[in-house]
């Protein structure tokens, strides 16, 4: 892969990686009495390893290919592999922490393996590791195909991909070491956050430059969503993570936002991480891979516009529904609830647009598990956005908040929508990318589909039951007006559901393992003999043509 970089690009890579090694040395030296030092060593190893790879291929002959005659797919392939590796890691951690809630001794009396430290390794592992890598890979693929133009540059895609994974490694290893801001879904500390800003801005520039090279007059709808995903996540990440480190030698920092303002900023971030990381980006996937696989155009262009701007505008108001009945001023709670309810319109416009696109292709949904993944994803998207709007209503939230119902809701979205659309997209993308006729085994795709559906349903039903039971027990009074149950009573009632939940998660993990195996065997199989000449960028327009 390095052989396909020009010598100038190899020099860029060597310089950037050397700088990173120097940064790692500085972190290790300044933070020698702190967890920061461990991360310094980790940065040295990560950048040093890549530097070694670059330098060992440094003097290979210059590539001779005509770059404009093909798309640049190497980073996409690497992104898919990384995404699946993170999926297996993150889902395994999920099953482990779920099991700890039922059998607490599974923490083995160590510090790093307690629930509180492992839980963010699960959330970051699946959201950023699995989801983030899948988004980077598919966005690189979609933007090239829908713009009929090659990625703008060969070095920056690698920088974005590996830079993002360095962030993930720092984040996840940090939690095990006890390095965390304890801000949900933004746990990584200040130096990892700063690094992500650099990576993310590079990503935005690369994406916009590629779009600027397009040979199509209009920007395709999938790219609207990828742009919203990249831009808004940058805004959210920067604002929520503004913090003052206690010194240059410490991993620890204090956020600039105090108390109630921190709560608002945190949930403005938290809810929109769901909106723009876990929704907008994956809608980008849906708007490309679903019509491609179904071989039908998107049902309605107008619905696409409506849902895109509805999501972009409404979502940013909705975060305060995480803070109903708290010390946050009432007017903000009311705004959050109102916009959350209105959000149902653009959400269902998207889900409906996806399902109506399948009209006329239902026989394919029946026969093709890959397309069925995407259909099920659209259904779960519709269901969980309905549930979300419902739970944002104050009196409903009085019951659901702080309980497992919320956890169930998140997983209806994360497993049912995000993971299913990703698997469907990967099963479409992998054979196309590696120029294979189809996946290694259609039967394993089928098995994966049913494992994923069964796992999701078991998980969500368990959490609905436990959450509602828990919420009702907390507010049940005896006839003499005393609380009927102690907190421990409500915990004891949870155990059967915690076991069921861990089992549902395990089924989902097994599905992901099967998917990894299927992708691996597809990559290893013999490629198609003839080249697909349709899968190339549009020729550069001749002036005057």
């Amino acid at each position, binding site marked *: 892969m390095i052989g396909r970089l020009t010598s100038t690009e190899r020099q860029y890579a060597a310089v950037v990686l050397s700088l990173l090694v120097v940064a790692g040395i500085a972190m290790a030296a300044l933070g020698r009495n702190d967890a920061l030092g461990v991360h310094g060593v980790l940065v040295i190893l990560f950048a040093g390893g890549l530097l070694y790879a670059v330098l060992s291929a440094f003097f290979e002959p210059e590539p001779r290919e005509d770059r404009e005659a093909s798309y640049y797919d190497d980073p996409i392939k690497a992104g898919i592999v990384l995404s699946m590796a993170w999926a297996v890691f993150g889902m395994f951690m999920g099953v482990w922490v779920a099991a700890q*809630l*039922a059998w*607490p001794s599974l*923490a083995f*009396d160590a510090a790093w393996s307690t*629930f*509180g*430290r492992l*839980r*963010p390794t699960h959330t970051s592992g699946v959201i950023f590791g699995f989801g983030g890598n899948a988004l980077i890979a598919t966005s690189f693929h979609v933007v090239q195909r829908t713009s009929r133009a090659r990625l703008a540059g060969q070095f920056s895609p690698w920088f974005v991909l590996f830079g993002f994974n360095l962030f993930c490694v720092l984040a996840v290893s940090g939690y095990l070491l*006890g390095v*965390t*801001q304890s801000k949900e879904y933004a746990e990584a500390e200040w130096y990892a956050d700063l690094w992500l800003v650099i990576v993310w801005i590079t990503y935005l520039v690369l994406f*916009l430059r590629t779009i600027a090279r397009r040979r199509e007059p*209009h*920007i395709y709808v999938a790219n*609207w969503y990828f*742009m*919203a995903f990249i*831009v808004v996540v940058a*805004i959210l990440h920067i*604002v929520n993570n503004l913090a*003052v480190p*206690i*010194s240059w030698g*410490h991993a620890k920092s*204090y*956020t*600039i*936002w*105090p*108390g*109630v303002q*921190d*709560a*608002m900023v945190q949930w*403005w971030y938290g809810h929109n991480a769901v909106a723009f990381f876990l929704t907008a980006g994956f809608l980008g996937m849906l708007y490309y891979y679903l019509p491609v696989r179904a071989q039908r155009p998107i049902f309605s*262009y107008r619905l696409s*516009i409506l849902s895109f701007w509805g999501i972009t*505008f409404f*979502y940013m108001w909705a975060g*305060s529904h995480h803070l109903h*009945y*708290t*010390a946050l*001023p009432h007017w*903000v709670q009311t705004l959050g609830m109102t*916009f959350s309810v209105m959000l149902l319109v653009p959400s269902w416009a998207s889900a409906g647009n996806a399902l109506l696109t399948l009209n006329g292709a239902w026989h394919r949904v029946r026969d093709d598990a890959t397309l069925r993944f995407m259909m099920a994803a659209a259904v779960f998207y519709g269901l969980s956005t309905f549930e979300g709007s419902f739970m944002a209503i104050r009196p409903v939230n*009085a019951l659901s*908040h702080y309980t*497992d119902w919320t956890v169930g809701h998140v997983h209806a979205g994360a497993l049912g929508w995000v993971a299913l659309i990703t698997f469907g997209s990967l099963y479409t993308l992998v054979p196309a990318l590696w120029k294979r006729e189809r996946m290694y085994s259609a039967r394993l795709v089928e098995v994966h589909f049913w494992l994923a559906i069964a796992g999701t349903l078991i998980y969500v039903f368990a959490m609905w039951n436990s959450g509602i039971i828990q919420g009702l027990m*907390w*507010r*049940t*009074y005896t006839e003499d007006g005393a*609380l009927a149950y102690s*907190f*421990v009573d409500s915990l*004891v009632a949870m*155990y059967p559901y915690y076991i069921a939940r861990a089992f549902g998660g395990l089924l989902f993990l097994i599905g992901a393992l099967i998917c990894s195996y299927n992708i691996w065997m597809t990559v290893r199989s013999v490629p198609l003999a003839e080249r697909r000449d349709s899968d190339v960028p549009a020729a550069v327009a001749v002036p005057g043509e």
Partner: protein
Amino acid sequence: MPELFHRKLERSAIGFVLAIIAAASVGGIVEIAPLFTIDETVEEAPDMRVYTPLELAGRNIYVREGCYACHSQMIRTLRDEVERYGPYSRAVESQYDRPMLWGSKRTGPDLARVGGKYSDFWHVAHLINPRDVVPESNMPAYAFLARTELRTNDLGEHLAAQQALGVPYTDEMVANAARDAYGQAFPDSEAASGVSERYGEATSVSAFDGVATRLTEMDALVAYLQVLGRLTDAAFRDTAATEQAPDAED
């Protein structure tokens, strides 16, 4: 017509990105900025004190261990919550909290007012092995806290950073941070008197983990848990009526 306008917008990547930024900025600006300008957002509490260095260290352990994943520190304005946990939480009670630890999930009970509810000894036993005290508990064991010496040499830097962010630590508090941390956990030492001088007579000075020879992370965490809900009595004054849970029966 709007469709034609959108067709135009779709032709410019920069224009599209600017439109996204414009559409996405409104909600955050409207909901966040006024929280800094409207005075009623955070109540007045003249008696509110800052965390002592030992409590702050304990709070950082709470942060480090991700306790917020299972314990909230936010009692809602609902009757059953107030009866179970105490007066509902006020914004002022977390005005020095960075980050806030309101939490989003109660696998375990709310801790906003746990301070003083149990003895130090109960907390130590519970943290070493929760099931020794609450047989049905699924909380992890935190025995390692009692085995781990508390790092105090950087406590001054912690307080200085908080001071820079506007928390009213005095320079004297910053200078004596490590000493005060020792003093608070060693009631018989000379350093103990400085703690009540700087942080008030009501500050609990105690051998939190029951061992008066070593300053451990257990000392710090228990000191923090014991001060939860006790930095001010604002929540016990001027209490408005709570809301009935919508379908609760009397």
